[in-house]
């Protein structure tokens, strides 16, 4: 056992770090660090820079443009992106839709969609949750009725992240209303969002930001060739996606960067009597406990990668990364806000159009704290993750 990186791995890390330093545009770095809203152009600009380098789809097979990295290299890349503060590679296309197509897509679907995803020509979003189907996703009601060579889709999706930018949306829809097992009546459809009958309505969150939406489908006609896998097999696809590509669920790199920022920030805050916040034992202890949890989570994450390298598929244990990873992210945003003290109160909605006369960083802390409450709710709430571990790992 040796918990140090090998010389080859260290060299790879240096290469990634050096390239990111030279190629991450300063305005994007600053925007990401400040927690500013990144718009479609920002996201796609970074996407295309990575695509040009050949690094935009680390997990893809080489024949479709993947760099041929092993899991450790992919982890190092993710971590370095987090540390450098790059914009995210939006997961819905590269990570989610593409993985589904690679596994279940027809040759025509792959040829049509994968290059467009890779090059950042199409912005994909996800249509899973519905107003009545959150944690209980299999109860979804959006229906797709077959009419000749088309499906006619009616219903509503919710929490569609970045739906306002979506060119295409992949959806779980109900195609069989008779089946006794609810999961068996669900299908996976790709839908062009320019199709008549689709309405996107913003949901503004409590931080003032517009990142999620409702999407309404009113007699939307979708060619049957946009069905992925077989009709009624959508749940299989969704489950595959859930177990796949959650290497970065813990967001270790981003949290490490945030921790460094928090320490520096807490060292600057004084109480007017000469005591720095970071030297206040009550604050300091909370900070250290988060740091320790993060150290442990990094090793836990690496243990999973090690097991995967040995051929073990990522199991339900990965849910643990989601639980602890999001708890850490939330604790960090909370401590950052707390560190700002009374200066945390002034509100500056996220978005590039605002230029307040108070400090940018301070004004972002409370909205960010509020925004990060989402992390323990989205992508399967942490309670659902506990259910998964209880059932699949512990056999309860």
């Amino acid at each position: 056992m040796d918990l140090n990186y090998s010389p080859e791995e260290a060299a790879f890390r240096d290469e990634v770090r050096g390239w990111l330093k030279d190629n991450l545009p300063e305005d994007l770095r600053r925007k990401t660090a400040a927690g500013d809203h990144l718009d479609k152009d920002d996201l796609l600009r970074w996407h295309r820079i990575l695509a040009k380098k050949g690094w935009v789809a680390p997990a893809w097979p080489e024949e479709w443009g993947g760099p041929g990295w092993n899991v450790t290299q992919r982890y190092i890349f993710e971590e370095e992106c987090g540390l450098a503060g790059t914009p995210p590679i939006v997961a819905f296309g590269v990570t989610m839709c593409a993985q589904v197509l690679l596994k279940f897509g027809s040759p025509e679907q792959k040829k049509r969609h994968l290059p467009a995803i890779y090059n950042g020509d199409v912005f994909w979003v996800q249509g899973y949750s519905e107003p009545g189907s959150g944690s209980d996703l299999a109860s979804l009601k959006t229906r797709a009725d077959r009419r000749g060579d088309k499906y006619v889709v009616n219903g509503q999706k919710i929490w569609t992240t970045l739906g306002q930018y979506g060119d295409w949306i992949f959806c779980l829809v109900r195609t069989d209303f008779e089946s006794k097992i609810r999961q068996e009546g669900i299908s996976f459809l790709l839908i062009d969002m320019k199709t008549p009958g689709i309405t996107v309505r913003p949901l503004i969150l409590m931080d003032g930001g517009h990142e999620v939406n409702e999407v309404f489908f009113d007699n939307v006609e979708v060619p049957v060739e946009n069905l992925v896998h077989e009709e009624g097999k959508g749940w299989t696809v969704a489950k595959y996606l859930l177990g796949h590509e959650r290497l970065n669920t813990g967001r270790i790199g981003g949290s490490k960067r945030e921790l460094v920022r928090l320490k520096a920030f807490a060292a600057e805050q004084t109480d007017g009597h000469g005591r720095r916040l970071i030297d206040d034992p009550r604050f300091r202890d909370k900070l250290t406990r988060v740091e320790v949890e993060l150290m442990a989570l990094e090793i836990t994450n690496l243990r999973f990668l090690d097991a995967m390298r040995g051929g073990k598929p990522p199991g339900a244990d990965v849910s643990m990364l989601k639980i602890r990873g999001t708890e850490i992210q939330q604790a960090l945003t909370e401590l950052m806000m707390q560190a700002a003290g009374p200066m945390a109160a002034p509100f500056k909605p996220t978005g590039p159009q605002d230029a307040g006369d108070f400090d940018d960083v301070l004004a972002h802390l409370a909205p960010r704290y509020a925004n990060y409450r989402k992390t323990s709710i989205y992508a399967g709430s942490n309670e659902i993750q506990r259910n998964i571990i209880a059932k699949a790992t512990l056999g309860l």
Partner: protein
Amino acid sequence: MDFELSEEQRQLADSVGRYLADHYDFESRKKIVHSDSGASDAVWKQLAELGVLSIPFSEAAGGFGGGAVDMMSAMQSIGQALVVEPVLATVLAGRLIDRAGSASQREEILPQVVDGTRRLAFAHTEDGGRYRLDHVSATAAKAGDGWVLNGLKRVVLGAPQADLMVVSARTSGSPDDAHGISLFIVAANAKGVTTTPYRNIDNQRAADVKLDGVQVRADALVGAEGGALATIEEAVDFATALQCAEAVGAMQFANDTTLEYLKTRKQFGAPIGTFQALQHRMVEMFVSVEQARSMSYLVCSRVDSATDATERARIVSAAKIKIADACRQVSQESIQLHGGMGMTEEMKVSHTFRRLTMIAQQFGDADHHLDRFAALDAA
């Protein structure tokens, strides 16, 4: 980055695990715990034969020159089986001699530790110092060729079974000075040594050791006069890393047995493990132990590879914070989920509870290590 154990490490893990599973079941342990000495010569001998007592010592001392990673799996098994033999006490005291002692001290004392004929203890803790390693008010005064020791050492683990002790005493300075602490080898039966043995809450044996004008020869001094603190810190950090692995073994048992109980105990016509309120608590225990396990890997790996004392101390404190928190959580929850049965003497989980409770405080509790971690960060 590699989590695989080597062939030798795996073999030790297998053989210790198998031996303890076969010969150190709960009933056998009960007999040992209730015997007069509270320890077993036969078990000690066997642990020595399996290599547990040779791996951590240098080749010059007759050992294999291994590190914490080499000991890790054996310590987990020791934790799982709740072994009460003074392994940690002996390794800790032996390490002081191995690291700081003269060649003749090493060669005279340690081979008998390695072959299982001698147990050691480190007499250091005193009243009023809590976990601070620089708090030593026992004194050693020069007398002719040798030294005269006076003082009172408290809760010295393994002292009832040890025939030699490494004793810290102040050769200069005042009680909380970093400089002026020295180490001496003292025979347990030396004139002026009074040992008051007792059983700890976790059934480990310890003693208060009174030093009343104890005369030792000049060659009893271990290492440089007045400069023992760094040696002590290193050895205690090493022992803490080993104890983190022991804790993970004990927590693993607590989780396994609690999970089994959830699956078999029925109330309201169903196994209580079907209740979500309990499932989620069990999951939290599971996640905490995996996180603690990660920290035990990290700390064992780093105490072996750290190139300076600050780097080592920082990771040891980080690990102990996580381990101490997890020990509290897992021990408390395992009793709660067992209900009344968990409270009883006859359930092993209640003994695991007691051991985990003590591990959480030995070598410094979470608060102590939070303090040390912050101080190291600021330095």
